[in-house]
């Protein structure tokens, strides 16, 4: 059950999408998101969807994996859609009690769902094609200038990569604890939300205690391996931009400009 979590999962491969510099991919995602928020009508959304489709094709990541990744977010999607449907002023189609369904609302809901879906899929495509280590490297590198403002960039990146490292370990452990509790008659699958949340307490408490112990041991192990902060650190993999990075970034920028122009024209 916990194994279904795909957030931040990486599918190794050797396509252009995999070989791009992680910084490029990160910047592309940022541009893509900006473009999505400037899109308005069918044409601009169509352009964004088409571009994403192209990227998915290049990356050879199964479309199914992308859709599967969206599963946990379906509730949010439905919620946003419903809110948009009923709270956008305009021509009413139907109304009951305080709710009024409007034509504008339906369109807004449709576009909002498309926007969020594209946004999620775009981001997931990046995490699917980029190893978490490369991603944290990229974030550390891109945010590097903030070090001058005393933002603890290295520390944040290290925290992130350690968190990513321990997700599978902790999931495995949670699964083990849950099995142990199930064997003693605990029930995680039936009952209302409150009951199920209550049933999780005997899982979370040992999980937290063990996580703290792990953190303590890991800190010692890191010290033993001469970790003393980001100062004077070198890297096994040094990030270097290639020609293809420039090419992809320019393509993305052009698509973004296209979407912004189309959007501002109302298409």
């Amino acid at each position, binding site marked *: 059950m916990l194994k279904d979590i795909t957030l931040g999962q990486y599918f*190794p491969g050797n396509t252009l999408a995999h070989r791009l510099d992680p910084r490029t991919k990160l910047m592309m995602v940022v541009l893509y998101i900006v473009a999505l928020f400037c899109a308005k009508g069918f044409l601009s959304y169509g352009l964004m969807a088409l571009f994403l489709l192209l990227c998915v094709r290049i990356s050879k990541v199964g479309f199914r994996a992308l859709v599967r990744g969206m599963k946990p977010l379906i509730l949010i999607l439905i919620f946003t859609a419903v809110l948009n449907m009923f709270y956008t002023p305009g021509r009413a189609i139907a109304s009951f009690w305080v709710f009024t369904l409007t034509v504008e609302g339906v369109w807004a809901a449709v576009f909002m769902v498309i926007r969020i879906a594209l946004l999620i899929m775009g981001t997931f495509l990046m995490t699917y094609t980029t*190893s*978490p*280590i490369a991603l944290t490297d990229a974030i550390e590198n891109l945010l590097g200038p903030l070090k001058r403002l005393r933002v603890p960039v290295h520390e944040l990146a290290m925290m992130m*990569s*350690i968190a*990513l*490292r321990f997700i*599978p*370990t902790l999931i*495995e452990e949670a699964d083990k604890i849950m099995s142990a509790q199930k064997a003693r008659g605990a029930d995680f699958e039936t009952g209302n939300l409150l009951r199920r949340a209550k049933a999780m307490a005997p899982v979370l408490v040992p999980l937290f205690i063990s996580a703290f*112990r*792990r953190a303590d*041991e*890991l800190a*010692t*192990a*890191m*010290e*033993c*391996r*001469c*970790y*003393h902060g980001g100062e*004077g*650190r*070198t*890297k*096994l*993999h*040094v990030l270097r931009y290639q020609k293809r990075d420039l090419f992809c970034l320019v393509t993305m920028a052009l698509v973004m400009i296209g979407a912004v122009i189309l959007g501002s024209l109302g298409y």
Partner: protein
Amino acid sequence: MEMLKTERLSFAYPEREGEGQLVLKEIGLTVERGSIVAILGHNGSGKSTLAKQFNAVLLPSGGKVWVDGFDTADEAAQLEVRRRVGMVFQNPDNQIVANVVEEDVAFAPENLGVPTEEIRTRVDDALAAVGMANFARYAPHLLSGGQKQRIAIAGVIAMEPECIVLDEATAMLDPQGRRDVLETVRRLNRERGVTIVMITHHMDEAECADRLIVMNQGEVYLDGAPREIFQRVDELRAIGLSAPETVKLLDSLRKEGLDVPLSAISVEECAGAICAALKAEEKNAPKGNETEWNQF
């Protein structure tokens, strides 16, 4: 110069200082370069605490610790101390930092500011040394316990330490994993002259050391060659440790009156010693006794 040296080393955990309880009491030890030293003792006897003194993770409350001539209390020498003494702990999951094997092995050299090309050669070399070269791009959580522990050792080797301290590094492993790890460690000692300090619960691991130190309540209780120490069955029993099964068998036979030496540790040696003793007995015994033996 000795690899490790302690002089009247005492230690109490600061958060428990109020109780005035010393975890280590006046320990004086020297560990020679290139040797394999095993440390034995039951839980809470201070083995892990002592191990952490060896690379300045903990500093003495009293006395001194020198690593390759560097005083561990000297803050300026801390990195020099840590790069010389690598540590491998019990739980492999809690000492692997990165989620790709080669990145994890690269962690120590990265911290030391080793140039990128050299990190590459060190990582490849370290992975080859533990027989895990084919797993460089794996995610650690997909490996078995023994494999993870070998990755942890590779991570230490990449630091190019002169000494490796293993704190019950085989305790969580299955027999195969244990054998792999021990074989790896012994090879490092043989081929690269790395000094090994091995904290263990297993008698058979202690057996192959050059020297065995038994700790009890923060003190060095026995110190000598494993063969010699295992013969002191009663002294070991007094602090709740037991000698290897073979030695215990020989000891029982001795108490029954059979003249066997206690120095036979491996099963083969033990069998040989018993056979030899029985044959000698047969020769010396008067004829009548023989039938008595046959009745058994």
